């Protein structure tokens, strides 16, 4: 490899002379640019001798051109001499392509940008509410059509999503509710001990698990696991124009993509919530047996005193609502993907955050509701 690009400069009586040598390539452009920017031969003319160049690429050619352009603008005469034909051609080529352009659209003043952003956000939220309502209507209509014409129901796809969102989620839902069951049983016993109420940890475990936690935990796991998958699947189908292709066949994407996912979650989430109930009680019971010296038969007897059917129903009755929230958020955000892969990520995050938020709001509303009607 030849020498890195460099130049020497000397002053004569009537002019300056710059002799370039070595490889004037893109990779040595940094130091060369800094040195050339300091050049100021005013008022004498400058002769640039390119005879010593061993190699030149567009990077080096651009440096020569931009220096000449800058000096000529300052009223210095610049003369390029001894350039080989190839080098001269290259310099001429970059000169032809001197069309400055903006790298990024400049932003306006900070206050204006802020105001514009708030305005856009508000408008966006308004449209969001309208679109979400519209989407719910579309899904409801498609589900209604399906009930009127059961032959149009996509049974295979429905079963597929039951497996994906339900069966495949059993290990994670079971694991998490089991662990939380252990924690609640143990913490309950420890906290109630000073009051002599250690035996009531079964009440705490049963009520908390069955009424609130098992269904909430299942919903959060499913939002992260299946809601995000819905968005990503539908979103990338949208990017690859698969949804448009469906429409051209007269197929309704809502009917084909959304309804099976929606109905599948409606079926699986209550089952998962029930499974979570059982695993939570199992975890608590195991903890009771091993650490708290409560044998299984005693644990079950106490549990039966603490809870009844309504405790279980209060919890599981929320599952279909959560399922609807997760499925609708996931599919809705998926259908809103456009443009690039970045958009898939953005909407996936949004669907998970939205559905978990709405699930928790709904939980709070249900808890208040059930307390009010005294169940």
């Amino acid at each position, binding site marked *: 490899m030849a020498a890195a690009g460099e130049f020497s400069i000397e002053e004569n009586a009537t002019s300056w002379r710059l002799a370039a040598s070595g490889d004037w*390539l*893109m*990779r040595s*452009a*940094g130091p060369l*640019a*800094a040195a050339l920017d300091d050049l100021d031969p005013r008022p004498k003319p400058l002769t640039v001798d390119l005879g010593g160049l061993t190699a030149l*690429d*567009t*990077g080096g050619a*651009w440096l020569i051109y*931009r220096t000449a352009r800058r000096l000529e603008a300052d009223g210095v005469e610049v003369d390029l001499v001894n350039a080989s034909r*190839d080098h001269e*051609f*290259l310099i001429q*080529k*970059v000169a032809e*392509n*001197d*069309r*400055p*352009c*903006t*790298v*990024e*659209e400049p932003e306006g003043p900070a206050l204006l940008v802020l105001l514009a952003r708030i305005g856009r956000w508000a408008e966006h939220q308004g449209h969001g509410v309208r679109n979400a309502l519209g989407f719910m209507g579309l899904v409801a209509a498609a589900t209604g059509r399906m009930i009127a014409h059961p032959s149009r129901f996509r049974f295979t796809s429905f079963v597929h999503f039951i497996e994906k969102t339900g069966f495949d989620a059993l290990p994670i839902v079971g694991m998490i509710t089991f662990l939380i069951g252990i924690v609640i049983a143990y913490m309950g016993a420890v906290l109630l001990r000073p009051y002599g109420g250690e035996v009531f940890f079964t009440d705490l475990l049963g009520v908390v698990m069955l009424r609130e936690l098992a269904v909430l935990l299942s919903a959060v796991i499913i939002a992260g696991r299946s809601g995000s998958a819905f968005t990503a699947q539908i979103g990338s189908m949208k990017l690859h124009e698969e949804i448009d292709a469906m429409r051209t066949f007269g197929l309704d994407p809502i009917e084909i993509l959304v309804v099976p996912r929606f109905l599948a979650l409606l079926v699986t989430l209550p089952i998962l919530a029930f499974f979570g109930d059982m695993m939570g009680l199992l975890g608590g019971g195991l903890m009771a047996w091993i650490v708290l010296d409560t044998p299984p038969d005693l644990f079950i007897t106490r549990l039966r005193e603490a809870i009844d059917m309504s405790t279980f129903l209060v919890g599981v009755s929320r599952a279909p609502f959560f399922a609807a929230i997760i499925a609708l958020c996931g599919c809705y955000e998926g259908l809103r993907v456009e*443009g*690039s*892969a*970045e958009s898939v990520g953005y909407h996936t995050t949004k669907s998970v955050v939205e559905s978990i938020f709405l699930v928790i709001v709904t939980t709070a509303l249900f808890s208040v509701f059930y307390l009010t009607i005294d169940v």
Partner: protein
Amino acid sequence: MTENPKNAIEVEGLTVGFGRANILENLDLQVREGEILGVVGGSGTGKSVLLRSITGLLKPRAGRIRVFGETVTELDMEARTALEQRWGVLFQDGALFSSLTVAQNVEVPLREHLRLPQKLMDEIASYKISMAGLPQDAAPKYPSELSGGMRKRAGLARALALDPEILFLDEPTAGLDPIGAAAFDELIRELQQTLKLTVFLVTHDLDTLHAVCNRIAVLAERRVLVVGTMDDMLKVDHPWVREYFHGPRSRAAGISRDGH
């Protein structure tokens, strides 16, 4: 071309495969410095696989790939990075980074490998974009706002950012209208002459082969079947090569004069 051409790329005994099947087997190919080599072959014959193997994106099962005399597969990280700066790759759909503007895309390799002041980088990006035949107002746009042809030109500007010596092009004219494709062919030829590039061009486009390539390599049966000029290709007596270079599309492109 120089009188005694050196090889920019030498591939010896290359075998690449996925799972149980080998896509390429014992493949040999030389690309001379300063030439435009067109690589053709039916769908699934491994043209893109060959390109990806040479650029190190795929690990071969056997064989040796030398670029500028350096064995690609045996280099350490530092030497690899140095070598990677000497080639540029244009992927099929441009493969622009979607979160950056066109100009920022062109600046990515500059920023990564060179220490240049921002102003100089902006200037370099500007003339590269102009050289790739894009209008100035395309520079601050995001890839999703561009047409397919413009994305390819932007990808080309980015591939050329570091003034590479070898340019890999993966189906540069696929998906372009005939006028756009012809303009792109012209652009490749002009850039190759201006910058003295060695071009490795994977294509399906007979017009491109005819218009820009010095030599053509035909991939079939997991190896390079023949290498030669367009005239050589017309004399080859292999069924696929005959079909390809003497077919109706070939006559339309004015390459083959036999038949009607």
